């Protein structure tokens, strides 16, 4: 009905409904703006006396001017500089035909910059060709447009329309003159232009195919490499919609719209755009063989694969699985091994995301990818294998060897993206092993490395997951050292680089929350830590549960904490999340301490220790040893405790967090004191002063973190020691410090002696 109605009043031959893409194969056409660029080029090639510096500046401008969207004359003059053009434009307005005739033909001018193969020459040829193709009415239209283009700049509201007219008067004797251009009409037009309606349309014309392609390429590149520099999602979508309105067949725009809506996690539009893109792609590839390597059979496979990837991104694993199976089936039917490899690598990724073991699949994928000479997929597979191996406790040297081999591969094929990932992964592995120095070094390596990828549009690639991971690690490492100023700076950078709606934002969100939580816990401000638990749980369930248990434990709600820990342990054992298992065990052991079940804690700790050693988790191993030593101390074997403690002391001091260092030293001091108690008097004095010294060091670490509760304990112990040693002055000083802190803090929650 609508269609019938449309033709009710007007010409039934109306064709503005559907626009066929590029019917005439025209990629570019002449617009007033293009003419201005031509005029600029003309000036630059013909009139030589331009200062060298000025010339350089203009030369740099040429490419962006040629490729960019149409500017108004005002904008154009602002970029180029007023001095040019005025005369030439006037001449141009007088006789456009003559201008095009006098343009230096690229075929003749061999020695000039406008030679036919140069960028400028190519542009000129395009323009000349497009101009020569125009019919008379089109030329007329172009001329009118040019006039309006010029007048819109120089007939500002301030100047009365009668003012321009040096030109308007001259117009009359030109071959392309408009007779209707009466005064009254011009008045009316001015009036119209001041109305707000359609203002945006006025300012910018449609993009030509070339310009559109350039725009899409640029935005896509920016989305990939530095999202913040790309247009805002809403603005970009507007632009794309606009483009699609004028040319619905411009398939790439649909793809960009898909990417754009992925940015804002909009599943409806992204699915829609993706499918639309592939529908369109199938059209454009239809000339090829129906099912061969090229042609639309191929795009069908990749369509299904992309759909799988999309569902993967949104966490719809079942949907992703179905789509992937479809892609695999079609790829198999048409013997497309490359596509199959891509499918396989998605398959193991999917399995991994679902939390099941996929190492066999991954190994297969690596082998096949190597066989089909797909270095990217192969080393991606190896990286995934390394990740799985690290979690499953493969020996470190195997992993590092594998990483090294893939690195060689990366450098050979200049896969810069994979190099980044590899560095990030090494950082993570070192961090997991508890070697903070190595981790830091790798992180710095990535941050300071100049990327292999060429720098387009002045943007370095720095918004990949690898960078996010590394920066998060750095933040956490700094937090461990108590450098909270640096931490907040890093986090601020992360926030800028990865705005909250983006894909990798969850990484830093979790990292930020963890740091805040740890800080609150260390300060003993449990009420501050509690709200973070919910936020963490939203981002990572296991982590959230663990932190919840910690808070409950700290608040002395032992039963609840215990049940959560039990649940968590079962879950982690099922998913083979070793780090968490060990941490849960340690927390459980601490719970046992609180009920004075030191003996029951012991087997648990030993189990944890063996697990940590088996997986080379040095930081956790040291932590376990600390716990072990404390248990032994409480069980009354301080000699043993001190012996065990010495084993852990070195790695803790070398790699551990400041907090751990303090705790280790405090524990050591307590062991020393206890041992000294059993020694004869002559030795006791020396031992006690040693303990006092250790305590001093511990106090230094704690004060670095401003951890007042622990400082209070330390000062108390110090005061007692100094008292025993008869050092009254020191004793009084420590006592005073203790007193100050004690007044400031509430009564101690747990007994001092009962805590590590």
């Amino acid at each position: 009905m609508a269609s019938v109605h449309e033709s009710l009043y007007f010409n039934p031959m109306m064709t503005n409904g559907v626009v066929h893409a590029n019917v005439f194969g025209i990629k570019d056409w002449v617009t007033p703006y293009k003419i201005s660029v031509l005029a600029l080029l003309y000036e630059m090639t013909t009139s030589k006396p331009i200062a060298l510096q000025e010339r350089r500046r203009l030369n740099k401008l040429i490419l962006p001017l040629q490729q960019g969207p149409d500017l108004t004359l005002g904008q154009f003059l602002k970029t180029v500089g007023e001095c040019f053009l005025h005369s030439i434009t006037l001449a141009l307005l007088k006789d456009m035909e003559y201008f095009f005739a006098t343009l230096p033909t690229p075929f003749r001018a061999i020695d000039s910059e406008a030679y036919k193969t140069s960028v400028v020459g190519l542009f000129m040829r395009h323009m000349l060709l497009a101009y020569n193709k125009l019919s008379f009415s089109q030329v007329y239209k172009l001329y009118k447009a040019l006039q309006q283009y010029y007048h819109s700049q120089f007939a500002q509201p301030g100047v009365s329309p009668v003012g321009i007219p040096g030109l308007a008067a001259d117009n009359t004797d030109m071959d392309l003159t408009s007779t209707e251009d009466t005064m009254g009409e011009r008045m009316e037009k001015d009036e119209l232009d001041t109305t707000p309606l359609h203002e945006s349309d006025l300012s910018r014309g449609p993009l030509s195919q070339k310009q559109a392609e350039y725009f899409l390429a640029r935005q896509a590149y920016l989305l990939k490499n530095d999202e913040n520099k790309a247009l805002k999602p809403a603005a970009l979508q507007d632009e794309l919609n606009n483009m699609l309105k004028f040319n619905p067949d411009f398939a790439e725009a649909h793809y960009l719209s898909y990417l754009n809506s992925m940015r804002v996690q909009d599943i409806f539009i992204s699915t829609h755009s993706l499918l639309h893109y592939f529908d369109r792609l199938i059209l454009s590839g239809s000339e090829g063989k129906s099912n061969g390597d090229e042609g639309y059979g191929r795009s069908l496979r990749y369509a299904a694969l992309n759909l799988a990837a999309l569902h993967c991104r949104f966490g719809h694993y079942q949907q992703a699985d179905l789509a992937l199976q479809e892609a695999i089936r079609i790829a198999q039917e048409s013997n497309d091994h490359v596509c199959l490899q891509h499918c396989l690598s998605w398959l193991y990724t999917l399995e991994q995301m679902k939390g099941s073991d996929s190492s066999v699949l991954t190994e297969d994928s690596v082998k096949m990818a190597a066989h089909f000479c797909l270095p990217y997929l192969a080393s991606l597979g190896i990286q995934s294998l390394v990740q799985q191996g690290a979690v499953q406790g493969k020996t470190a040297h195997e992993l590092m060897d594998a990483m090294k081999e893939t690195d060689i591969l990366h450098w050979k094929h200049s896969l810069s993206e994979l190099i980044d990932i590899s560095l990030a992964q090494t950082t993570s592995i070192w961090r997991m092993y508890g070697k903070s120095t190595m981790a830091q070094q790798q992180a710095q390596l990535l941050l300071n490395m100049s990327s292999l990828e060429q720098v387009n549009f002045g943007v370095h690639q720095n918004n990949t997951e690898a960078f996010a991971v590394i920066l998060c690690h750095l933040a956490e490492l700094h937090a461990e050292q108590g450098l909270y100023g640096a931490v907040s700076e890093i986090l601020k950078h992360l926030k800028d680089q990865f705005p909250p709606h983006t894909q990798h934002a969850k990484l830093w969100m979790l990292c930020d929350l963890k740091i805040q939580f740890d800080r609150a816990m260390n300060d003993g401000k449990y009420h501050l830590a509690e709200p973070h638990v919910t936020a963490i749980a939203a981002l990572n369930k296991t982590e959230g549960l663990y932190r919840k248990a910690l808070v409950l434990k700290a608040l002395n709600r032992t039963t609840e904490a215990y049940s959560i820990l039990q649940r968590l342990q079962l879950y982690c054992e099922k998913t083979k999340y070793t780090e968490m298992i060990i941490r849960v065990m340690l927390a459980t052991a601490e719970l046992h301490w609180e009920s004075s079940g030191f003996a029951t804690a012991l087997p648990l700790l030993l189990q944890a220790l063996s697990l940590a050693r088996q997986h080379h988790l040095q930081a956790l191993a040291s932590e376990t040893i600390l716990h072990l030593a404390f248990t032994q101390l409480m069980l009354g074997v301080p000699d043993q405790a001190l012996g065990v403690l010495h084993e852990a002391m070195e790695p803790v001091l070398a790699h551990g967090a400041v907090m751990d260092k303090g705790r280790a030293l405090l524990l050591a001091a307590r062991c020393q004191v206890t041992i000294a108690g059993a020694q004869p008097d002559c030795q006791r004095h020396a031992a006690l002063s040693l303990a006092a010294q250790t305590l001093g060091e511990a106090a230094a670490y704690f004060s670095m973190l401003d951890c007042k509760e622990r400082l209070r304990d330390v000062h108390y112990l110090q005061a007692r020691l100094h008292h025993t040693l008869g050092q009254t002055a020191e004793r009084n000083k420590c006592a005073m410090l203790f007193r100050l802190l004690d007044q400031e803090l509430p009564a101690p929650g747990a007994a001092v002696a009962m805590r590590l």
Partner: protein
Amino acid sequence: MAALCSEFGDLVQIKKQLISVISLCKERGLVHSVKWASELAFALDPLPKNELPPPAIFTEEDCQDLDAFGLAKSYFDLKEYDRAAYFLRGCRSQKAYFLYMYSRYLSGEKKKDDETVDSLGPLEKGQVRNEALRELRVELSKKHSAGELDGFALYLYGVVLRKLDLLKEAVDVFVEATHALPLHWGAWLELCNLITNIEMLKALSLPDCWIKDFFMAHMYTELQMIKEALQKYQSLIEAGFSKSTYIISQIAVAYHNIRDIDQALALFNELREQDPFRIENMDTFSNLLYVRSMKPELSYLAHNLVEIDKYRVETCCVIGNYYSLRSQHEKAALYFQRALKLNPRCLGAWTLMGHEYMEMKNTSAAIQAYRHAIEVNKRDYRAWYGLGQTYEILKMPFYCLYYYRKAHQLRPNDSRMLVALGESYEKLSQQVEAKKCYWRAYSVGDVERMALLKLAKLHEQLNESDDAAQCYIIYIQDIFSCGEQLEHAEVSTALRYLGQYYFKNKHYDEASLCAQRCCDYNDAREEGKALLRQISQVRDQTETSSTDLFGPLSSNNTPVRRVSPLDLSSFTP
């Protein structure tokens, strides 16, 4: 309803009004409104001489402008719009003012169309605008705020606003126009195009006039509220418009929309009798003939239309349908293409062309056609469904789910989409979803009567024999109750399964009944006989004392008076 009747009671009055509005519209060159009103006036009894309405009163201004107006109107009729506008520029009368503005508007439109052909580049095509619109808007809005616009000028103002995509303002102005001049059908029609849902319709305050009923009926058809639309049209017919071809065609289209093919066909035949040279709506008619595979009728229609005017979109569509029915799909596609050349916004042709390409197994061209159809109208469920089918043919069941879902969203109560969804889910081994789809398809009224069968088979596969049997029973009842003999083979499978099912569950009476029924079908006869034999064997064993030992035939006499879920006695297959 009583109010309606009383309103229509005075048909003479209505006729008078129509006649006067016809002359008004004619003076102003609003040809389509003239056509509509004339059609309606023709349907009413002629007036006696003394009842004829007097010609419109001439004002002083009209007299002054008479010559200029006459000259301009002649130029206008010859499509020299700028010239017409030039001579009207000084006129003072309302009539001349309207024609002045209208010619400027049409001149802009004409230039726009001409320019589309040689615009500077493909991307600029969509950019071509009617340059006159903005000026017209400024002038009209000035007059509008001064309250100087009459009904026709208001209508033009509305059209200008709509063309500038100022839809909200346009609706207000059109409502004002209908108040100012309720009899101008063009304003109503424009309003109809701007209303997207029933809430919006209810919120409008429209003039209380007999023409409002025509509008409401039209609106209900557009909003797919077919029942209400039919009711409205029926009451209009009862009120005395029974001869109106407009109403008949609208009712026929409405029946077509709810797939009541017989009714629609009858109405279209009536329409053709009354108005044999009518081309409008004939594409819908041909769709109906196509669905019913009525080759001779369709061929006759095509011949007839070609004779009348072969360069009409409708004619091309009819010919396309004709070739499609004769399985000459290349030619069919060619004619749909021609239709699209005549009017690229012709939605139906895009979809139909897609179907033709599908028949030719040219999937990529089909996808292109469907995508175009969606571009023209996003709510075209047939195109979405077609896209789904294309991908299904390409063996991508997961991929086509999206398209079927879209189609289903647009037509939630259409069983075909649901069955298609169910089939895709079944292919993806998502039996739970598939079952839901089939069941829903059955509940909304299955057109093809396949949903239950598929559901039953699905249950059968999943070894849910009770559910399967239940579905088969409903299926058989359904098939027999609808009277037509559709697929014997499928009935026989149902019977076969039911026989086995009852046999397993030791309901021998029902089992034997099913087995006998099986014997009516060729492909199941042997099995039916075998089952009967088995049943009698079992009976022999269990009831050796039983009286009859006549073998298979005996069960024929066994009275089945127990309450059986399968009571087929009343139906003769």
